């Protein structure tokens, strides 16, 4: 018997839904078998927590007296984009603070930026708004400097073009000097290795063929009930996959949106990558409805069945050679050491399994309490889509 979104939602509303985390479902399916477990389980909660650079938020400040059509704005000295309506701005996660020396003295520290402003807002701190304008008849004010907090804003809506990478590269550095990347500090001559995925907990690794996650899916975005509003940028489903359908590299992505006023500070964190820049680490949880046995079977995927590909971030990644060095499962990576090219390499992570697990549990509790209902996607994510590169051609006169 297969279930429907509606029948599952009815059970959730009645407080009777059987909900398991993506970790719990692994043993459950092993004990009960797929067919029996599929009858019983209604929802599996998945999650991830890690740096997600393509994130940011639209903020509406409300109008000052007299009114101002803001053309340039800085929030805690971090510039926001103002090419939209009068008092709307978009603040991006990777925007540096004004006067940050960046990598002028390499490696730069990048202590504060867009991601940290977003963290401060969600944590309830007041931030400084400084804005300029050229002045118009209807919006005469030319300058403003004031303090605002999340409660003072009309809207603060996170709109993230790319979150939840389905899988991700594993980074090493084959060169003779240490390098500074968004995968952290990579030691020279492959003396360290970094991966960045929640593996068996990660949303799109539990629904590898996008059978339930699509446009319109309700998500837990740092505690707020948000949604998938589009395919994420660089969504590329046509990649190499293992027999279980799970991609062995980046693949799918999600564009997510949610109300910052409802977010939890623990899951919205500014990050500083030495020598690279700033970003925002976010927690995302996605419930997977167990509509049939096949969907359940896919959520029972374990770290030992999910592969990730090792890439050299000193040469192959920046130069786009396409060369890769090998593959490991997340179980091997989490052991803390793997052997590559005849060498034992210590492994570390950028993604927090601990926080992802906490999110799976929080979302499970929300659903069990009848506070979080599932939504059927209005459109699926593209299932057979590649990725283009950028051709560098002579400008036309």
């Amino acid at each position, binding site marked *: 018997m297969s279930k429907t979104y509606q029948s599952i939602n009815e059970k959730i509303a009645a407080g009777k839904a059987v909900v398991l985390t993506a970790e719990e479902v692994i043993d459950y399916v092993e004990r009960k078998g797929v067919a029996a477990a599929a009858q019983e389980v209604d929802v599996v909660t998945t999650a991830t*927590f*890690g*740096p997600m650079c393509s994130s940011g938020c639209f903020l509406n400040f409300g109008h000052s007296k007299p009114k101002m059509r803001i053309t340039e704005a800085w929030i805690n000295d971090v510039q926001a984009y103002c090419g939209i309506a009068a008092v709307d701005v978009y603040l991006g996660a990777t925007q540096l603070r004004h006067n940050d020396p960046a990598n002028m003295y390499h*490696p730069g*520290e990048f*202590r504060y930026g867009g991601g940290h402003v977003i963290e401060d807002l969600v944590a309830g701190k007041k931030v400084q708004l400084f804005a300029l304008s050229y002045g118009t008849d209807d919006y005469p004010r030319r300058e403003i400097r004031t303090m605002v907090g999340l409660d003072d804003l009309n809207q603060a809506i996170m709109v993230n073009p790319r979150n939840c990478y389905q899988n991700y590269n594993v980074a090493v550095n084959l060169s003779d000097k240490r390098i500074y990347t968004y995968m*952290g*500090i990579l*030691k020279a001559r492959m003396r*360290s*290795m*970094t991966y960045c995925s929640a593996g068996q907990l990660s949303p799109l690794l539990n629904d590898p063929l996008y059978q339930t996650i699509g446009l319109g899916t309700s998500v837990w975005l740092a505690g707020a009930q948000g949604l998938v509003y589009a395919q994420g940028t660089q969504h590329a489903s046509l990649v190499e996959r293992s027999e279980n359908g799970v991609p062995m590299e980046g693949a799918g992505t999600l564009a997510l949106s949610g109300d910052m006023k409802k977010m939890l500070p623990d899951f919205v*964190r500014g*990050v*500083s*990558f*030495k020598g690279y820049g700033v*970003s925002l*680490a976010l927690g995302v949880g996605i419930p997977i409805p167990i509509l049939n046995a096949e969907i359940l079977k896919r959520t029972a995927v374990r770290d030992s069945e999910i592969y990730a590909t090792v890439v050299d971030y000193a040469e192959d990644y920046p130069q786009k050679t396409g060369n890769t060095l090998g593959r490991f499962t997340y179980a091997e990576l*989490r052991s*803390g050491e793997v052997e590559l090219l005849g060498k034992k390499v*210590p*492994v*570390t*992570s*950028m*993604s*927090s*399994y*601990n*926080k992802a*697990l906490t999110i799976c549990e929080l979302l499970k509790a929300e659903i069990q309490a009848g506070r979080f209902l599932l939504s059927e996607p209005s459109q699926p994510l593209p299932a057979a889509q590649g990725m283009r590169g950028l051709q560098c051609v002579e400008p036309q006169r």
Partner: protein
Amino acid sequence: MSVTKKLYLYFPKSETEKPIVYKLVKDFDLVINIFRAKVTPEEEGYLSLDVTGEAANIERALAYLSTLEVNIHAGNKGLHWDKERCAHCGACVVHCPTGALAFADQARRQLGFTEDLCVECHACIPACPFGACTSSF
């Protein structure tokens, strides 16, 4: 029996001239391992060190230090791990040479900081994207 104790000392300007480390070695027969030392432009001093020696001698040395205008903190003040800021990503783990920062709970992948193992090399400070590791040096 010889024991090792980790100390963090703060000297106000009035005491920075005194040969304190020399006294610890000479008068109390202690082996000193200095992790970090700093004298600020105001000429205050900070010293983070291990002392190894007879328990009784360490006691006497601490008694001597307490006669000076030195603030003594037992344990590690040179590296502070902020439990609240830590996101348990693990990025610091391969950079920490002693295992002071490591996954304390493997099942939940929860990080822990074992103060006694920390040698204050500061490798974790730039490696932590969440600003959880800081130092007073």
